[in-house]
C-alpha cells in the first residue's frame, strides 16, 4: 500500500483546504477514499453507524495534484480507505497562508498516518521552512468498504437550482428557532418553498424564478397533508419534511465557491443538496425525509 501526492500551486491548496474545513464542520469523523482518479471524502451519519453516507464529496485528483502515486491493497482492491478525524486534517491546513508546496503521503509511524509535508517560504530569506503534520488514520479493511460506497438514491422527482446559500441559511436559522422540522417544497414552476409549523405560527418562505433542471411529474399529492397555496397545481409540487438542524448544518457549505447548487427531492423521502465547483469538485449531502 502506498500513497504519495503533491500540490504545487497555492490556489488548489486553498480550495482543498476550504473543502476539508467545510467537511470538518459537518462531521467529526470522515473516511478518505483514495482512488486512481479521484479522492473522496465520505461521511456517515454519526448516530446510525455504518449506514449509507450522508455526505459524499468527490475531488478529481488531476486538477489538484501535480504528482499522484497510488498502490492499493492488492490487485483486486486498488483503492485505499482511511478513517480519520476531519478536525485534525482541517487544523493541519490552518497554518497555510502562503504555501509553496504540499506533499501528502501515507506513512507508518507509531500508527498509520497521513503525513502532510508543507513547504512555506521564509519572509526573510530565500530558504524555505518545512512543517510536518502526522494525522493518525485507521485503514479500513476491504470487507467494510461497501459501507462507504456511493449511496444509491432513487431518481429525484425534481431538481431545482438553489438560491444564494447564505440567504437560505439565514432563513433556515431563523426557522430553526421556532420549529425542529422544515418542509421543503419545490414546484415545477420554479418555486422553492420552506415551511414550518410551530406551536404559535406557520411560516413559509418562497423563492421564485429558480431554474428547474429536471421534473418527473406529476406527483401524487392526494393526502390531506398538502395544503396547496396559491393557484399552483398540487401535482407539480414535490415535497419532503426534513430535520431543520441537518439542513442548516449542510448549508454551511457556503464557503466553497460554487458553480451550481442543486436541490433534488424524492417525494417525501429524500432531499439531496449537490454542489459543483468550477474545478469539478462535487459535494452531495443526503438528508432523509421524516415521515409520520
Amino acid at each position, binding site marked *: 500500500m502506498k500513497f504519495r501526492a503533491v500540490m504545487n500551486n497555492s490556489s488548489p491548496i486553498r480550495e482543498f483546504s476550504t473543502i476539508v474545513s467545510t467537511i470538518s464542520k459537518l462531521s467529526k469523523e470522515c473516511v478518505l477514499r483514495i482512488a486512481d482518479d479521484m479522492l473522496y471524502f465520505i461521511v456517515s451519519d454519526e448516530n446510525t453507524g455504518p449506514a449509507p453516507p450522508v455526505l459524499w464529496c468527490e475531488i478529481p485528483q488531476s486538477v489538484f495534484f501535480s504528482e499522484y502515486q497510488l498502490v492499493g491493497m492488492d490487485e483486486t482492491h486498488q483503492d485505499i480507505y482511511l478513517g480519520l478525524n476531519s478536525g485534525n486534517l482541517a487544523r493541519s491546513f490552518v497554518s497555510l497562508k502562503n504555501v509553496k508546496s504540499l506533499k501528502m503521503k501515507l506513512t507508518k509511524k507509531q500508527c498509520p498516518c497521513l503525513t502532510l509535508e508543507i513547504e512555506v517560504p521564509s519572509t526573510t530569506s530565500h530558504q524555505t521552512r518545512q512543517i510536518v503534520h502526522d494525522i493518525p488514520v485507521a485503514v479500513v479493511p476491504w470487507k467494510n468498504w461497501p459501507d462507504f460506497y456511493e449511496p444509491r438514491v432513487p431518481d429525484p422527482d425534481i431538481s431545482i437550482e438553489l*438560491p*444564494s446559500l447564505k*440567504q437560505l441559511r*439565514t*432563513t433556515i436559522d*431563523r*426557522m430553526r*428557532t*421556532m420549529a425542529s422540522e422544515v418542509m421543503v417544497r419545490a414546484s415545477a414552476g420554479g418555486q422553492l418553498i420552506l415551511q414550518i409549523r*410551530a406551536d*404559535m*405560527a*406557520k*411560516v*413559509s*418562505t*418562497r*423563492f*421564485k*424564478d*429558480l431554474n428547474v433542471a429536471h421534473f418527473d411529474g406529476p406527483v401524487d399529492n392526494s393526502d390531506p397533508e398538502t395544503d396547496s397555496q396559491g393557484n399552483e397545481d398540487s401535482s407539480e409540487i414535490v415535497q419532503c419534511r426534513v430535520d431543520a438542524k441537518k439542513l442548516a448544518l449542510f448549508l454551511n457549505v457556503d464557503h466553497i465557491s460554487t458553480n451550481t447548487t442543486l436541490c433534488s427531492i424524492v417525494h417525501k423521502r429524500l432531499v439531496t443538496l449537490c454542489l459543483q465547483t468550477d474545478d469539478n469538485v462535487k459535494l452531495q449531502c443526503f438528508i432523509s425525509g421524516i415521515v409520520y
Partner: protein
Amino acid sequence: MAEDSSQYHFTASMDSGKTLCSLLKAIQFQESAVFCALPEGLKLTVEEGKCVQASAYIPADNFTEYHVRDDVDVIFKISLAVLAECLNIFGSGEEASLKMYYKCEGSPLLLVLQPQSFRNVMTDCEIWSQTPDSMLELRSPEETDVAKLVVRAGALLAVLGDVERSADVLELRLQPEPPHFTIVTYGMQDRSCIEVPECSDTLQSFSCERELTLKYQLHHLRLCMKALAISNKVVLRCSSTGLLLLQLKLERDDNKHMFSEFYIVPLLDD
C-alpha cells in the same frame, strides 16, 4: 392578498421592519405580548410579575399604510418571540418590507415580508392570536407627576451598566437642591452612589417639587437596558405613589419616532 383592505380589522405596511423588530426585541422579556392596534398607532405590551409593564408604541405615521376599522377593538395576545423572529427571517443585515393583516377576532395575524435587495423571495407568516389577558392599570388618571427628568438614553444606559451587578436595590434620590439626582445601589457588601449634577449634559431637563427617595428592584430597571441602547432620549417620571415611568424615544433617520414605555412599581419600605 388582493382583497379589499376594508374587510380586515387591521392592515398596515412599512418599508422596513428592522427598527420595529429591534424595538420588539427590547421589550421581549416575556414570551407573549398584548397586541393592540389603535387608530393613532400600534402598541405591544408585556408584563413582568405585576411589577413591570413595558410597551412598544409605533405611531401610525411610521407606516406607509395604516388602517384600523373604527367600529371594532383590535386587541389580542401574540407570541412576541415568534413575531420578532418572523420579522428577522431574512437576517439582521437585510431590510425587508412588511405588510400586516388581521382579519377579525380569532383569526391569525398575517405578515408578508419581502427583502428589498432580492425581489424573488417572499415570506408569509401566520401567527396565531389568543384572547388577551387583562392588563394592569398601574397609574390612575388622577395621579400626578412629582418629578420629571429628561436624560440622554446613552448616559442612563452607561449608569445602569456601571452599577454593581450583584446589587438588588436601586434608590433614586431627587431633590430641588443640588445634588439634584443621585442613584444609590445597595448590594451584599457595598453601597455605591452616583451623583448626576444638573449642569451635566446627561440631564437635559429636571423638575422636582419636593425631596424624594424611591427604591426599585435593580433587576426591573435593567429590563429597559435593551430599549435604552436603541433610543435617543428618555423621560423619567415619578408619580405621587412612587410609580416610575420611563418613556423612551427612538428617532429614526426619516424623522419618524417610535417609543417604548416602562412602568416600574416601587419597593415599599419595610
